[in-house]
């Protein structure tokens, strides 16, 4: 099968790969490029574990063809901390006990980041709505919701 070239930035770094047509972005990121922070929980768009940010929008990488990402700017959870300093969302998830097995965590953080990028001071309902595409089987969600609200508050304090 002829390979197709695809080129995009991942967490700010240039990436180029040859892929088979039909390869999902999830597969390309994990198995070709080696960023295993997006997780495959269902490969059918129902769990949110594979969530990434493409050009500022939250996307399910298991339902996104890698070949459609040419020229895109892709962000994953592995790219959030800067110089060893955790992103406020990462800090808040850690402090709020919002991870147990951790499998949903990278996807949750992506969904939360897109929310806070668009809505820096969300209501609890807005947080719940923003996370509604991400399944967590361990925490019961409450610590995750609290973590996102805490991160939003710490962001606004930093801004003030």
């Amino acid at each position, binding site marked *: 099968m002829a390979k197709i070239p695809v080129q995009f930035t991942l967490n700010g770094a240039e990436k180029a790969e040859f892929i088979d047509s039909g390869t999902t972005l999830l597969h390309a990121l994990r198995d070709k490029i080696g960023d295993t922070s997006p997780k495959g*929980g*269902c490969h059918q768009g129902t769990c949110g574990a594979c969530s990434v940010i493409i050009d500022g929008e939250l996307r399910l990488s298991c339902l996104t063809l890698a070949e459609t990402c040419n020229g895109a700017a892709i962000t994953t959870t592995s790219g959030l901390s800067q110089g060893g300093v*955790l992103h406020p969302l990462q800090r808040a*998830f*850690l402090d709020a006990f919002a*991870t147990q097995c951790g499998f949903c965590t990278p996807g949750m953080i992506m969904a939360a980041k897109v929310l806070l990028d668009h809505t820096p001071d969300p209501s609890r309902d807005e947080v719940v709505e923003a996370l509604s595409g991400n399944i967590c*089987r361990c925490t019961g969600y409450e610590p995750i919701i609290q973590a996102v609200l805490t991160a939003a508050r710490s962001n606004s304090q930093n801004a003030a």
Partner: protein
Amino acid sequence: MELRKSYFADQRKDDLHEIGQPRPRSDSPGHVTGKTAYFADRNFPGMLHLKMVRSPYHHARIRSIDTSEAQMHPGVVKILTAKDVPHNVYTILILIQIGPEDETVLADGKVRWKGEAVVAVLAETERAAQEATAKVKVDYEVLPAVFDMEEALKPGAPVVNEYHGRNYYLYDSGECRKVRFGDVEAGFAGADHVLEQTYQSSPIEHAPTETTGCIVAPEGNDRFTCYTNTQAMFFTLDNASIILQMPGNRLHFVGGTVGGGFGGKVDVIVEPIAILGAKLTGRPVSFIYSREEEMQISSPRAAEKVVIKDGAMKDGRIVARKVTGYTDAGAYSRHSPYGAQKGAGHYPGPYTIPNVWIDTYCVYTNRTPSSAMRGFGVTIGDFALEVQMDKLARLIGMDPLEFRFINAYRDGDMKAHRQPTEGAALIECMQEASRAANWPVAEKFMAMSSYAKGA
């Protein structure tokens, strides 16, 4: 959270200063940065993908299997059937002498539940493996199936599993686990109230976010490294060793963070066949359940049926309890004989009852084999018992919490299975619960203790 050191002050001298204090988990930094390695976060050059051909029937004889067309499918490297598995019939708990071996790694002559693994296909890509499974031709003769536990126990019911020869697990105590304590019929005869109720539950799927799976890499020296998300590392290693007839020192199992298990990853299902695939092809093998397989194929919590008959006095004392419990193992034992046995010990509940009769059955049906899940064998029983306690309290006309104080076990009480109660603390927990829930009970109950009788 507050630690009440006044309780059991003579028992705990240690400081216990960690309780009620938030402490960061050691694995959280890895989780929030995406650095935690799960078993699937590995990729080996030349890795093959394994997909299963599964039974579309609940119960059927296999007349023939034809893999010739699948073999020709582009990308297919190896196809495995029962005859390729060195020790194909196994049972997980054989390691603790709970037999007989009753389950096939790959079906041999018969399938006993819908979804049972029949043929394993190894191919260069997941897609090729999946496509080839559709080209395997299995000729089935459909057999009558049984799905209801009481139907399965009736004479003349289709026999689900020939390795047992009957549709229940034969304990050394007979057709069920039994607890006999006092004289339950005399207890009912003398009771002011008798209440018999039946409680039933459906199978429950753990639905972990990460599906069950493993990746096996041959090491070149005839050893195999198996990266797995099993929750039962040594059960899996030892059973793999039996199934593959391969000494354990040739198997290197690497576990790590499990992406949610809840008991659902204690069965030995993916590893032996993936190791066999790696051995026979000389290539790394990935066998990871699809989400559909996780929901339909992995063992759920057993369906249970619990019949509870209680005799109680007007003053609130339960004087007799008779329980018949049924655990639906599905087609194979896995951990269910143990679960049903746990139920037998557990059913009187945390209550002191002078006359107890318990029978718990582990029943085989043509349903998905059930297995471990958070407190299996006792969780559904507790649901049934506590609903029964509320109903009894209502029947007698008593506050449900006070009713439990009257019957709560205390240190020194003999339990029905002849273990004296120690360190019960149930009275103290209920006293705290009464305060925390603002559900007041009479002062005499707040003055009770798990230590002293007669208060």
